[in-house]
């Protein structure tokens, strides 16, 4: 019956493993391959295509047809470089905003009496369960030239003329902070909630004023939550598509928009793949850091 046990174990492991290999890893390799191909007016719209029937010959022909043309294109056309920089800039600044806004919120929730915490966490998470699309669309409503935000601003004489919000970077920041706030608040809250109160009390007992307690005790101890929140926000924001597309302008697209445009607009699959590969390379370091962090936390528990 030891073999029978081993059989079940293998099954439990192999099914998800093979699924992920087939539908996550292999597609990446294909993206890599396509990025090295040329665009073609054909179905599929790239060449060379692997001719399975031709056996090794086909494989050799495949490799012969690969080139780095697309990457050269990326390097030469300033559009792509600008797109990369823009994405990183927006992601970095937005993550900072999220940290500044999310930390007090998480801290506040962690400090409330325990029976309220579950409700508050639920309230914070609830909007997240509705569609991102819907929530961004809600902001489109608000940020319109003759929308409620401008109505309020004009009514309170904060501005004379209703400003234009949509198609600006500011709108993108608003959208991102709005959508990603739970991603920042939850890891922070999880860490802050586990904070041992007696440590804070000990610091007070030893003579620390409240702000010092925060700076010397709370903040360092919540660093793993900060790291998790920052990575959880920064990495996906770099590749965001929906938010900049609906709220931002078309003058300086982010990388996600660039990929979309190349793919659906220009039908240039190889170019889109090349941009995707560049994006992955950009993100590989933070992703690996995130994975290490996540595994370390899981193992510690």
């Amino acid at each position, binding site marked *: 019956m030891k073999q029978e046990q081993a059989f079940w174990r293998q099954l439990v492991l192999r099914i998800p493993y093979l699924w*992920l290999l087939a539908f996550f890893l292999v597609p990446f390799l294909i993206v890599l391959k396509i990025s090295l191909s040329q665009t073609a007016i054909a179905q599929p719209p790239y060449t060379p295509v692997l001719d399975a029937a031709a056996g090794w010959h086909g494989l050799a022909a495949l490799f012969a047809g690969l080139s780095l043309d697309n990457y050269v294109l990326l390097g030469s056309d300033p559009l792509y470089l600008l797109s990369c920089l823009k994405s990183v800039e927006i992601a970095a600044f937005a993550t900072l905003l999220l940290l500044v806004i999310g930390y007090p919120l998480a801290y506040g929730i962690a400090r409330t009496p325990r029976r309220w915490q579950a409700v508050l966490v639920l309230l914070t998470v609830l909007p997240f369960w509705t569609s991102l699309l819907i929530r961004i669309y809600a902001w489109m409503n608000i940020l319109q030239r003759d929308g409620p935000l401008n109505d309020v601003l004009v009514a309170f004489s904060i501005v004379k003329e209703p400003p234009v919000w949509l198609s600006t970077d500011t709108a993108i920041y608003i959208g991102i902070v709005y959508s990603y706030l739970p991603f920042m608040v939850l890891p922070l809250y999880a860490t802050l909630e586990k904070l041992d109160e007696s440590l804070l009390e000990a610091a007070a007992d030893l003579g620390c004023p409240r702000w010092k307690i925060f700076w010397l005790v709370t903040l360092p101890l919540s660093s793993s939550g900060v790291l*998790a929140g920052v990575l959880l926000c920064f990495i996906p924001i770099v590749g965001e598509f929906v938010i900049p597309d609906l709220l931002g302008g078309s003058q300086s697209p982010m990388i*996600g928009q660039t990929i979309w445009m190349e793919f659906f607009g220009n039908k240039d699959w190889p170019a889109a793949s090349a941009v995707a590969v560049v994006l992955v390379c950009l993100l590989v370091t933070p992703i690996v850091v995130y994975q290490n962090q996540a595994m370390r936390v899981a193992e510690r528990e």
Partner: protein
Amino acid sequence: MTMRRVSAFNLAAIVVGIAFLYLPIVLLVIYSFNASRLVAVWGGWSTRWYTELVDDAPLVDSALISFRLALTSATAAAVLGTLAALALVRFGRFRGRLLFAAMIYAPLVMPEVITGLSLLLLFVAIAVDRGFWTVAIAHTTMAMCFVTVIVQSRLVDFDTSLEEAAMDLGASPLRTFLSVTLPLILPAIAAAWMLAFALSLDDLVIASFTTGPGATTLPIRIYSEVRLGVKPEMNAVCSIMVGVVGIAVIAASLLAKLSGARGVPARVR
């Protein structure tokens, strides 16, 4: 305990934060009842946008497709994700564990344009017709990672002496799993299922890449309408979706509280 007293600053931060989160949605729902077509002009209360929805056949179609899609992929993701979580927590250091764990955690943060693009290229490379099932596979793959993380954190907390007790009393490993482990991790699996359902229902980018003719999901349809500007019918659609999700989450949370669990598990990573 003086530390537990809620300071004014904390209270203000919480109230402002939560108000900020709900304001746009509340406004959205209000505008869906605006009789006038223009947002700026308040034309009085009206439900005409809702009634017009019913006649919009393609929209209703998309809604049904999205619903079926979410049901399928959430269930598949729940099964696969639970298996993966079991492997990660119970199987110790096996060969290939590092790669496995990397493949689980990466999709959680990977931008959707990349995962969508890569899956589309896969389907094209193996010459599969794109449609409902390709989107289902894509959604399952994305969601299973979330399921794994949620179930994993439950399994890590699991009291293994319960399983030992079951085996000591004569239950084989399989029976132990079915009669002791599974019932006790079921709340976590259920919460993960709900999350996978919401993710699938909500997804725009991945669906856009991996779908085919005849499988236009609701988000795709909404997006094609709104990218040109605000539309009052869309206000109504969105309000309905918000309502449905809100009721479902609150119901699930109440159910969890009644059955003695610790409330709806937040999407904690």
